[in-house]
């Protein structure tokens, strides 16, 4: 099986936020939670870049390492998923995550966190594929349908790439070689301890 990854080519991102919207709609993500977001660095200055970011499905994922109830698991495609049945909403994965991926619906008293929600790489959860329970907790399971994550699939400038890590890395490399510049494979060094050498 392939090791799937995300790669955002920030030199192509036009900050249209379609990936954010598509994700929210596809998975019927609860109010207040955005599994994907677009951040603009150096906004308004020459050389500003926008980066679409979500869970990077890290190698040796920090969230999984710190979870007190061990609710995370990694699929054969190296997608990092979690069980909302086990999650207790303690917030530890949020402290450890370099990308701010884990989010919690606000439920009950104080700042009580509900079950953590994050990007599933459109791969659902531990429930049976295409089951109602899976959709309600984790959203659509596009991977089981043989499709890639929607955010990347519908990206109008093909800035956001999803798929086999080696293939998307080579696509990015080719682009950088051809156009002569690239602001880097954002998050790769932090998530996968490697970057795309050009």
């Amino acid at each position, binding site marked *: 099986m392939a090791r799937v990854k995300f790669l955002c080519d920030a030199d192509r991102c036009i900050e249209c936020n379609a990936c954010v919207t598509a994700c929210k709609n596809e998975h019927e993500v609860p109010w207040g939670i955005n599994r994907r977001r677009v951040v603009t*660095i150096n906004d308004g200055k020459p050389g500003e870049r926008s980066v679409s970011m979500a869970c990077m499905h890290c190698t040796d994922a920090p969230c999984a390492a710190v979870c007190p109830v061990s609710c995370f698991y990694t699929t054969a495609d190296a997608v990092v998923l979690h069980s909302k049945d086990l999650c207790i909403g303690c917030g530890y994965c949020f402290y450890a995550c370099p990308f*701010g991926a884990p989010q919690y619906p606000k439920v009950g008293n104080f700042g009580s966190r509900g079950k953590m929600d994050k990007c599933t790489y459109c791969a659902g959860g531990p429930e049976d594929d295409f089951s109602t329970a899976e959709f309600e907790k984790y959203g659509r399971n596009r991977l089981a349908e043989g499709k890639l994550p929607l955010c990347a699939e519908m990206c109008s400038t093909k800035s956001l790439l999803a798929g086999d890590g080696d293939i998307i890395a080579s696509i990015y490399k080719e682009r950088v070689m051809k156009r002569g510049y690239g602001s880097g494979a954002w998050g790769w*060094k932090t998530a996968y301890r490697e970057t795309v050498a050009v």
Partner: protein
Amino acid sequence: MNAWVKSLLAALAITVASALLPAVAQNNNFFPTKEAVQEEKLLNALKPGERISGRISIPDEKAANLIQPEGREWRLFHQEKLPVIAGVALLGMLLALTIFYLVRGRIRIDHGFSGKTITRFASLDRFTHWLTAGCFMVLALSGLNVSIGRMVILPLFGPETFAMLTGYGKLAHNYLAFPFMVGVVLMFVLWIRDNIPNALDLEWIKQGGGLFSKGKHPPAKRFNAGQKVVFWLVMGGGVVMSASGWFLLFPYMAENGVTSMQFWTTIHAVLAVIFIAAMLAHAYIGSVGMEGAFDAMGTGEVDLNWAKEHHSLWVAEEQAKAPKVAPAE
């Protein structure tokens, strides 16, 4: 004529200027595509605790943080440092207490039970003590469970049961924090006047509190130096645990979100294990470790001989107040 010269000069000036301008522009030339922000440069420029952030258009300012490598440090703390700190503090204290018990044994009342008692703690004192202690025990166990339970308890129960228990533990931890805080405040009000350090404490400490030698009892008022240390530990620990816990109970109350929460969890966890270790010693000497000590917080009535041995000056004060000691019954 004048006008003609003027317009000629103006035309010349424009020509010269336009010839010069590209040269000027070229000096400050910036290629927004080639010279855009580089992730690697930003990452390398980060100082500890800093994040790569930008502007975000969705109405959630917190999401403007793009990468926070500090999460890695927190993970290292939580996975590698904290279990060691907790292990050393808690197992170390248990070991020390076991050795102390084996060497010193149970500290007996030298003159035996007198059969007469003296009121040491009124019901409000005892209520405050057990309110705080009860909350503390649940907070300590649920806190330890969420920190290291995965290594110790999860294998025993399996993930489903363990997650359910830990979930209830989290709820208990959140809610019992408040009565605990009330208890700490009550303790402060009730016992502060007897816990001001004074010269007597130096003497008590010099004699090791009589802990290490039989039949030796340095004079003490209502609270001896050891008890004062426990009092101030509970006050200091209680305040810092409550303050740090408050930031965790109300996420995003703190100014810089995740970074401050990482900081407060670290403080909360390290102080917690020290606090628990100290309370283990306190619980030991108040129960198994010393004959007659538990009555103080149990019934509130302690044996007169115990009181005379451990709190000689306090007994004298009390007896001066009420010349007749109430008979034991």
